[in-house]
């Protein structure tokens, strides 16, 4: 187990290196002038400005020089100060967000984390619950209904579902609005009285005893949560159902039945725990996916998370920000996968033994 973890950890820098080289490589499709496009939002009034920007940011230099500069930074010959350099913890400046990348991630990630915390439970639990029901009542009405329901869910493009939710709950009913927080509560959390313990808004609101802020934050997250859940239930439903059906046909379940245990206990005490293993893996991957930011959902609901920032960076070809997000994402993914694997080993004795 330990050697396994060490091996995985050793792989981390290799993978991150691969990811950054890949992104850098993709950008080589663009000519220096095209890469300058991010720095000029409209045609510069002074024609010479583009040359200046190309020179200043070294876009005309070969691939490996640019990569190396990004990695270790550039020393200003006159002042001796080092600019940039990822190994010195300087992630650079995002033009699309007009702020340093590190600050951007720091500001956006707690929001994404908040959304993840609240979206995970309904997304996974309802999927599992429906899946178990569908398996227990195999080919019965519940099974068919749950499947149709979930298929419709997977068939909805996220943004169409999101737009429809906005149409109903925002434009018509005025129940839930997009964004992060209402203005009045924005003022509350910016006041000095509101202490930011964790920077995760809902948790901070509870710690400060401000239930109004807490509820307002939840109200703003309700539609994104609903959207994420509905579209993801289906996967959980399918995996749970399949796994459950398989388990229910195993010998030991039949034995339990034969011993006269009530069907309830057979299903929920004996079959379900074993059927949950593949679901656990899936849940792990889903959470990791959410932590990386959900591009479309955050964009549709104007939610200030990592995903919407990343979408913006990608569409405006903000190289520096894209690299920052990729590094961050890769890091989260690798660590989270590791955690999932270790947890898995604890849950499943077969993995532990091998």
């Amino acid at each position, binding site marked *: 187990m330990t050697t396994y973890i060490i091996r995985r950890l050793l792989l981390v820098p290799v993978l991150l290196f691969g990811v950054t080289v890949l992104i850098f490589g993709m950008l080589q499709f*663009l000519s220096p002038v095209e890469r300058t496009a991010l720095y000029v939002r409209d*045609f510069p009034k002074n024609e010479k400005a583009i040359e200046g*920007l190309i020179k200043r940011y070294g876009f005309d230099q070969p691939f490996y020089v640019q990569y190396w500069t990004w990695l270790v930074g550039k020393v200003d010959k006159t002042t001796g100060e080092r600019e940039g350099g990822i190994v010195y913890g300087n992630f650079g400046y995002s033009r699309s967000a007009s702020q340093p990348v590190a600050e951007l991630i720091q500001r956006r990630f707690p929001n994404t984390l908040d959304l993840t915390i609240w979206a995970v439970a309904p997304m996974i639990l309802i999927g599992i619950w429906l899946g178990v029901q569908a398996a227990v009542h195999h080919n019965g009405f519940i099974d068919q209904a749950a499947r149709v329901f979930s298929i419709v869910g997977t068939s909805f493009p996220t943004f169409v579902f999101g737009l429809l939710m906005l149409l109903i709950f925002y434009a018509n009913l005025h*129940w839930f609005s*997009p964004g992060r927080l*209402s203005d009045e509560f924005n003022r509350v959390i910016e006041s000095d009285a509101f202490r930011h313990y964790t920077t995760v808004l809902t948790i901070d609101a509870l710690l400060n005893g401000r239930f109004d802020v807490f509820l307002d934050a939840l109200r703003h997250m309700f539609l994104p949560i609903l959207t994420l859940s509905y579209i993801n239930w289906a996967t959980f439903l399918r995996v749970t159902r399949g796994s459950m059906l398989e388990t229910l046909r195993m010998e030991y379940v039949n034995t339990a039945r034969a011993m006269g245990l009530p069907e309830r206990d057979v299903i929920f005490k004996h079959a379900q725990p074993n059927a949950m293993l593949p679901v656990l893996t899936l849940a792990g991957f889903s959470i990791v996916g959410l932590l990386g930011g959900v591009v479309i959902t955050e964009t549709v609901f104007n939610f*200030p998370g990592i995903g919407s920032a990343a979408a913006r960076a990608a569409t405006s070809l903000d190289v520096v920000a894209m690299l920052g997000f990729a590094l961050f994402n890769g890091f989260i993914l690798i660590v989270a996968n590791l955690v999932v694997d270790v947890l898995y080993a604890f849950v499943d004795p077969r993995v532990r033994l091998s």
Partner: protein
Amino acid sequence: MRKMFALLSLLVIASMALSACGGTAPTAAPSTGDTTTEATEAPSTDTGTDAPAAAEFKSADPTTMVVANAEVATDTFDPALAYDTASAEIIQNTYETLVFYDGEATDKFVPMLAESWELSADGMTYTFKIRSGVKFHEGQDLTASDVAYSFQRGLLQGGTSSPQWLLAEPFFGVGVDDVSVVVDPEGTLYDDRELLSAFDSAAVVAACEKVKSAIVADDAAGTVTMTLAQPWGPFLPTIAQSWGAIMSQSWVVENGGWDGSCDTWQNFYGMASADNPFSGIINGTGPFTLEKFANGEEIILARNESYWAEPAKLERVILKQVPEWGTRFAMMQAGDADLAVVPAANRSQMDELVGIYQVFDLAANTYGPEQEVCGYDDSALAAAKFTACAAGETGNNGQFRLRIGRPALQMDVLLTNWNIATSEESPNPYIGSGALDGNGIPADFFSDVHIRKAFAYCFDFETLLNDVFSGEAVQSYQLPLAGMPGYFPDTAHYSYDPAQCEAEFKLADLDKDGIAAGDDPEGDVWTTGFRVQMGYNQGNATRQTIAEILAGSLASVNELFLVETLGLPWPAYLRAQRAKQLPLMTGGWLEDIHDPHNWYQPYTTGTYGGRQSLPDDVKAQFRDILERGVSETDPAARAEIYKEANTLYYDLAVGIPLNVTTSHGFSQRWVQGVVLNPIFPGNYFYTMYKD
């Protein structure tokens, strides 16, 4: 597994409670939705039913102005380097300049940080008397040397992406657009700090000395003297913009800026906004201070209580980034935002809710009286949508105020490329076969004046103005704008005329056999036809439509004439235009200063002239006119000079001026005191209040 069910039921209950909260919140909690209902109901119960209608519109928070922008993304707050309107808006509200615009006038100036000024008889030396008793936000006193330092710093920091070229020309002479050219007239040092530092140090110091001798402060007398390289008609407009704002020398030095020494200035030359210590902090003398700066989210300005004049009426101004139009619309409807950016495409949604409006009166050059709306017709265009109330009639009580009809200071011009770049190695993808065979155009297609005129006659201005701008634009007849020397309300211009278009095509001689296309037995453009692509930058719906209109009318004149519209992503568009590959394009220009020079320079000898590959002799003709124009200070004489430029531009059909849009701005009804000077980069909050 029981646990899971417990959890699940908890979750269901929680979500039910949540949705219940959501459902009842607008009535139970003081949430966003009901601020207006409260505000509108409260007075009516107090004052009874016969209260005047306007009294119903009260903001919940009368001292805070909330502005919902699509984007809150400033480049830098360093006045010397900021050259985007978002930054300039903040700078204009927090920093101050020597002179400022007189209300809504674009060409009259009032004292601001300068109490008075004098211009020497030769038109080359300005002496400004600096106001005393002015303090910066952080308490420093304003001195004459602060003023001189700010201008010196700006010129020396230079760089081609900054606005300093506007100041460099009056101080160093026409054509010298950056301080690096003063150091090395060869122009090898543009934007390159390393090369500049390595350059002959005597020349480097000399450039700085030159700047310092041109701008001299006398702290005892409280004056600053500026000596120009040549008489410069539009000098006051140039220093009234954000790049003429005054910073505190001691504060700049404290925060790691230039120390004022001629030995170190090169270390600050051509600075990028990301490395600039003054990109995110502000210490000006203006009526507002920067309270919060979260780029990409919001900017909060707070009232400067120790302002040298009467403090502003608003306590705070919040600029919020709200990217989705729908959300901004909802904020306006709920009264949560006082001002919002409304895309032209979505104006009709707001128009329906307008209760009071003002139409700009072109003749009087000011907005007309406020009128209540009594009728709304969505099939009409622009101001004609609204019917004003007759005396004694009560309006529709719509919640918004609309100001409409003022021409903007931005113009679109249809441009042709006289010598389209193409070569064996990189064949131009936008000109088809590159030959006159009906499947492309030759590279010199547009160097034939008849072709250019034919295109001009084939542009359907009517459709552009009515369909694209819903009647909220006027056709431009010339480059200068109304109110400038060189603007003539009626002058020779092109209008849509398919017969003329056909006649001009038949006069063209593209195979250069000396026989016009209409009579050419071997066939010419009229019989072969052509195929050309007109690119526009993706996302710019207006430019897309301009291309489609042109394509439609050309095809109706001769079905062999094929213009394909092509949306290019911004980077590709930038590259193609830089490489002079685009055969046809729409150019837009937003003026820096309200002066014809700022219009003719880019469209002939400058930026766009270059992209059009104008031949040297044409450029020389224009350069001659422009040099005479800019050094002349008498407006009437200048008008005559620019009239020559107008005629030349029209005769050669260098470009086809398309349109100037007219303003269409919304606010809540309670927003008062707005100064709508079109040259302002954004809102000027000092005079605003809510009532």
